[in-house]
């Protein structure tokens, strides 16, 4: 069983939204020309993911999943006589939730935090159609997180992973302006290739082991290694 912390770290590194699933690539490529705008969009993505995924989690578990309507009528439960499965509605519900929450957040931020609105404002409308937000909701549905805390940890981790990715590529793109890129590769082409290389670098995080059981195994093998090492040292 994965702990909440495992889910969080996994979402940032080994299952990074950009490098492992390519979610939100369109805005990633379009808004990564300068670090400043990249930070703004990245922060907006974290914010919206953390708000929408838990809401969609509640919807999924109390409305859409097979037998989720048990709280209204026991007959509709998974073990009831007439189990209801509304999961075919999930796409339309999720996207409606995302679009309306983005609108709401935009209005609230504008009213109560004008400074934040100045920084995030122009990016919020972009986010309604950012694949990573809907992707977050759909992965949450597919992976069946057991508690809302896990789902929130997943959304926060994915948001932070996305933030790291876009800020890193923006910093690289700012610097690469001073180097000699072959003309046909300039702009889009080189960005693709750099993102690919960054993805290869991020794959090194796949070696992280998650879960308590595996961690224990790891520790015992680590102990063995130290014993062996001390032996060799003694021999030496």
């Amino acid at each position, binding site marked *: 069983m994965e702990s909440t912390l495992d889910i969080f770290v996994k979402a940032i590194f080994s299952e990074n939204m950009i490098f492992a699933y390519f979610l939100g690539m*369109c805005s990633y490529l379009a808004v990564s020309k300068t670090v400043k705008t990249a930070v703004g969009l990245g922060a907006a993505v974290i914010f919206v993911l953390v708000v929408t995924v838990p809401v969609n989690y509640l919807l999924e578990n109390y409305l859409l999943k097979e037998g989720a309507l048990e709280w209204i009528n026991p007959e509709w439960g998974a073990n009831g006589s007439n189990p209801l499965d509304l999961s*075919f509605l999930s796409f339309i519900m999720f996207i409606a939730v995302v679009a309306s929450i983005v609108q709401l957040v935009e209005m609230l931020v504008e009213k109560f935090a004008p400074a934040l609105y100045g920084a995030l404002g122009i990016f919020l409308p972009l986010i309604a159609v950012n694949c990573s937000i*809907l992707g977050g909701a759909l992965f949450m549905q597919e992976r069946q997180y057991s508690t809302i805390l896990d789902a929130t940890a997943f959304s926060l981790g994915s948001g932070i992973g996305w933030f790291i990715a876009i800020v890193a590529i923006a910093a690289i793109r700012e610097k690469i302006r001073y180097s000699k890129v072959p003309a046909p590769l300039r702009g889009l082409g080189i960005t*693709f290739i750099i993102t690919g290389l960054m993805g290869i670098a991020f794959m090194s995080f796949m070696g992280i082991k998650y879960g308590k059981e595996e961690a224990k195994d790891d520790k015992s093998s680590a102990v063995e290694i130290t014993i062996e090492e001390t032996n060799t040292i003694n021999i030496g």
Partner: protein
Amino acid sequence: MSEKEPREPLFSKKNKKLVTDPLTDNNPITIQVLGICSALAITVQVEQAVVMSASVLFVLVFGNIIVSMLRNLIPSRIRIIVQLVVVASLVIIVNEVLAAFLPDVSEKLSVFVGLIITNCIIMGRFEAFAMGNKVWPSIMDALGNSFGYAWILILVAFFRELLGSGTLWGVQILGSAIPGEEWGLYTMGYANNNMMILPPMALIVVGIIIWVQRSRNKALIEDH
């Protein structure tokens, strides 16, 4: 609108251009940079890429028809939500059909069928074309853009599947590497490039396609 407006022939030069332009010089993936999200993740096998392209074709054609018919009724303030509802309903149809008739492909595509909703090509074409044009040109535009999307997708999948697992559409092309039954290239010590199956290589393959395309047509080169 005056009724005496001269009728345009169905396949006029302008309409043909709508179909052919997105195939090369105005390609949705390599030039407009739309729809990358789903394009890269499902190009491990040709079969998935073809199914994905067909789904996008269906959603884009019917979505463009619907949005183009409704274009004078949609209040511009809420147009994004109306468009999202149109796409989401069409994607639900696609998802249910795939789950019923192609269950294993549907499982492999997993969340990426749902992500057609936020595929930028679709919203981009609604905004840029269907909201301001009649139904027939919108259909042409949808066909052009989804074929433009499809051929890049299938090309990437072709290289990734051929070099990564030595197969095409699941059929062994380069021979077989099973010990004892080796044939084809594998007898000469050829090995699959497992790198091609991993996600980052999709980006690099698309980068190379962009490189080739832009070195053939200098007008497309960006200045940084």
